[in-house]
């Protein structure tokens, strides 16, 4: 982590007029003490905070390479838990279920969110737009356990027994706002000049959408799709309550392992799922920060 760049650098950035030749290091440190915007101890808290945030994750990753079967006693480096994890049938079928559900739910959620976002930011004379926006974001307002219980009762009343179908329906619903928000942000921040130019040149609405709007909002659509994919992949509460019917997702499978106690193979599995999530997260960050 690059937290160790010295304070003098940041001091200079916030006070550009403070760069005259007489600024010896000694003087600078005197100045820092007088800088009212500098609060002593804040940097230490920040360092502690990042340690708190990352140490537990690093512990899981580190101990996944521990050769010893007793998790907490270090015995030597080994890949063996990864190879035993990859030969684990339960894990592989959970992985397959999770990826299928996430892919299908992401497709539906992103399509639904894209349609709604286009109407809400480009439609003319949209009635009750704030209400519609609230409806699209409804899953964000409820605690997830409430949603999970609600769909559990719904599925049992409708006698839907297919585990895969239940998961896809529920995941599509709670992924919609996560797909919606990046697309909506992209549309809001976008200049409408090009779309207007296309319309002035008599492009029909569909052509304008296909050739101008869609390519321009694509980073937003991709960001929304990635976000909803990861949200679906990582979901535990809803998947756990409605699981059954022959479909166990990865987090539910991991939970069943945690209940049996900590094991080095569990550390390896956790590291694998973290790697998958982070592989998807990093491009998301660049996509959503691109102007």
């Amino acid at each position, binding site marked *: 982590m690059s937290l160790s760049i010295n304070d003098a650098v940041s001091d200079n950035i916030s006070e550009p007029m403070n760069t005259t030749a007489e600024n010896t290091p000694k003087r600078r440190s005197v100045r820092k003490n007088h800088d*009212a915007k500098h609060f002593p101890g804040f940097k230490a808290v920040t360092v502690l905070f990042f340690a708190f945030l990352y140490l537990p994750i690093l512990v899981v990753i580190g101990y996944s390479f521990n050769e010893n079967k007793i998790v907490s006693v270090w015995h030597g480096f080994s890949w063996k838990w990864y190879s035993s994890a990859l030969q684990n049938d339960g894990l592989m079928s959970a992985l397959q279920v999770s990826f299928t559900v996430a892919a299908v739910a992401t497709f539906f959620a992103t399509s639904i969110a894209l349609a709604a976002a286009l109407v809400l930011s480009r439609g003319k004379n949209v009635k009750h737009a704030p209400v519609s926006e609230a409806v699209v974001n409804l899953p964000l307002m409820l605690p997830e356990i409430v949603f999970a*219980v609600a769909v559990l009762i719904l599925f049992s009343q409708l006698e839907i027994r297919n585990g895969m179908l239940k998961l896809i329906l529920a995941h599509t619903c709670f992924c919609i706002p996560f797909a919606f928000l990046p697309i909506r942000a992209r549309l809001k921040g976008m200049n409408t000049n090009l779309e207007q130019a296309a319309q002035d040149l008599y492009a029909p609405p569909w052509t304008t959408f296909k050739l101008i709007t869609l390519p321009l909002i694509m980073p937003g659509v991709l960001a929304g799709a990635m976000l909803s994919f990861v949200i679906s992949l990582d979901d535990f509460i809803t998947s756990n309550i409605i699981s059954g019917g022959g479909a166990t997702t990865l987090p539910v499978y991991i939970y069943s392992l945690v209940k049996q106690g900590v094991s080095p193979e569990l550390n390896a599995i956790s590291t694998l799922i973290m790697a998958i999530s982070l592989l998807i997260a990093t491009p998301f*960050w660049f996509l959503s920060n691109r102007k």
Partner: protein
Amino acid sequence: MSSVHKMKEGYLNILGLAPAYVVMLFMMVIPLGIIVYVSMMTSDPYGGFISEFSLDSFQQILFVTDWDDNLQLDLQYLNIIGRTLLLSLITAIICLCLAFPVAFYIARQSASRKALLLFLVMLPFWISMIVRVYAWVLILSDNGVLESVLSFLGLVDDMDSLLYNNGAMLVGMVYSYIPLMILPIYASIEKLDLRLVEAASDLYANRFNTLFRIVLPLCKPGIVAGIILVFVPCLGTVLEPMLLGGGKTMLMGNLIQNQFGVARNWSFGASLTLALLAIVMIFLMLQALRASRLKQQEQ
């Protein structure tokens, strides 16, 4: 615009929003209605419920029926609700104390370091909740990582398990939700005019006074938003009490989960869900009222 064109546009608007409305209606609104219905029915001991009107499930939150069919006050569920509120509040306060200095420090960095540090704050959010909570099981469990490190250093000999108590849940909850506190506070510090801080110091305010009388009041909107963002999800949290809390230290989230799992008492589970929903709604409404009052003051 011709009226035909206008009509076509209206259809397009409806067509675009219809799928979202349909999903939300069938997956959120109707199911919530069913929860209300189930909470007023009789529970079926074999799972599910029987369509027989009864308000026993609400009564069960507060009272227990003894052998003579008399109602007696029963505090066990009230205790769980109280513990949920208290732990969520303590979590929000700890998150605030930690997050404020971090947000302030990040806001004072150069643009590229700001982006990097914010990315690092958000990164754990992409990691599955179950893995993040499991990490604490690994650290705190009997013969776990913390114990072996401490005994290696010779600090402890044999220590009681650190898991399955309120403290372990608290650590897990702070760990899970603290990024939600940093982001809104960071946003409000970004908007803060730092010349005010300089002015305060020019007028001989010390750092303590500057912080508590200038910076904190000006960041109040971000702080309130952060507290709501941490406190409300904590109320319904499930994984931390399931894995880090024991059977004696339940929270509302896993109490509800149990009613639909091992306890097989759907009606009681539904009424507890409504209680949780009511508590969440009260806090969200208070926040909305506050926000609209602030808006009026500005105008």
